[in-house]
């Protein structure tokens, strides 16, 4: 290699093709599983395993290259750009579901109830009164167009109960993470570990309570099949929960890396990226709490 090489260009790699095989296997398995094909589930699990293997292998290689000092500040900046626009794409993904929520609440449900002089309402939806518990207008036994029977809940999730507690937990995890961030910038290693452990614990507690809340809601008949209310409720909180899970895993990896001494006071992009991701997940929840449970 010539000595003028100013930029870092990595050698060939097998991880991407492994990743493609993994994700494709995962999706093919999933689709078959949904269609009741016997081997669908196991193929899906195999695909998931390959994908996880790829992620650990690929990220592990990047971490080891980083700790071996192969990267320069330019590579570091490329990672920063990459991470931030990845998160922006996540924002837009959530925006689609929030958009569906706002559309249903502000437009389509009122229209079903005859708003804006909807002339079809008496024909199609006689007697329907619009409101955001729209699940209530179904009589038990109604089937959706997909042929799946709708579930009519007996009651909705109590905002003052687990949701409020969970919001508190997640906001506190944001606070503890900020303390960890401060400790890292000040170079207090033991404090970082303490605050980070607290963050992970709060995040895990959030997930635990979320599972409990789902259990209660499901028992009360509030399911994915409870009309647009259930659809938006579960899809928004579900995707959020998935992101919290990913965030907890990433924070755990960061904890491990801090114990290994990978970060310095001035150079800790791995931590910053994960911290920002966690703050983002936190804000999404705050939005969820307010728009799904309150307004």
């Amino acid at each position, binding site marked *: 290699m010539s000595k003028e090489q100013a930029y870092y260009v990595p050698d060939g790699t097998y991880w991407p093709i492994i990743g493609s095989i993994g994700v494709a296997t995962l999706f093919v398995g999933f689709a078959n599983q949904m269609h009741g094909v016997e081997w669908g589930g196991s193929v899906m699990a195999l695909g998931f395993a390959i994908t996880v293997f790829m992620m650990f292998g690929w990220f592990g290689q990047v971490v080891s290259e980083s700790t071996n000092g192969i990267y320069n*500040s330019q590579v*570091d*900046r490329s990672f*920063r*750009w990459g*991470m*931030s626009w990845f*998160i922006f794409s996540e924002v837009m993904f959530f925006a689609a579901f929030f958009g569906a929520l706002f559309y249903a609440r502000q437009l389509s449900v009122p229209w079903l109830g005859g708003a804006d002089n909807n002339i079809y309402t008496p024909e199609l939806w006689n007697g329907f*009164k619009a*409101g*955001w*518990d729209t*699940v*209530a*207008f*179904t*009589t*038990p036994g109604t089937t959706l167009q997909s042929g799946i029977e709708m579930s*009519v*809940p*007996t*009651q*909705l*999730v*109590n*905002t*003052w109960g687990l949701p*409020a507690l969970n*919001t*508190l937990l997640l*906001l506190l995890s*944001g*606070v503890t993470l*900020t303390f960890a*961030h*401060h400790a890292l*910038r000040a170079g207090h290693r033991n404090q970082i570990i303490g605050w980070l452990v607290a963050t992970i614990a709060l995040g895990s507690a959030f997930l635990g309570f979320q599972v409990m809340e789902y259990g209660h809601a499901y028992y009360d008949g509030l399911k994915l099949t409870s009309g647009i209310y259930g659809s938006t409720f579960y899809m928004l909180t579900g995707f959020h929960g998935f992101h919290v899970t990913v965030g907890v895993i990433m924070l755990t990896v960061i904890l491990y890396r801090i114990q290994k001494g990978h970060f310095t006071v*001035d150079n800790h*992009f791995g931590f*910053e*990226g994960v*911290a*920002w991701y966690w*703050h*983002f997940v*936190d*804000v999404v929840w*705050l*939005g969820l*709490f*307010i728009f*799904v*449970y*309150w*307004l």
Partner: protein
Amino acid sequence: MTEVLIVIVIIAILTALGFGLVGMIKGGKAGSNRMFKSLVTRVTLSVVLFLFVMFAGYMGWIEPNNVMVDAPVVQK
């Protein structure tokens, strides 16, 4: 009115989060400082907003979405 206030604070939180991202992209000492400050702002605002929402709910200024207006026609 309360709703408008809440939405404004949410936008402020998102803005702070966005500034944090800009700081992260910038990197270096200045970027790191900017990121940290923005994130502190966003955490503080979030906690304040949460407390305000709880208070507003307690005072009855806003209603939670957990009341079923029309009881379902259950035919058991």
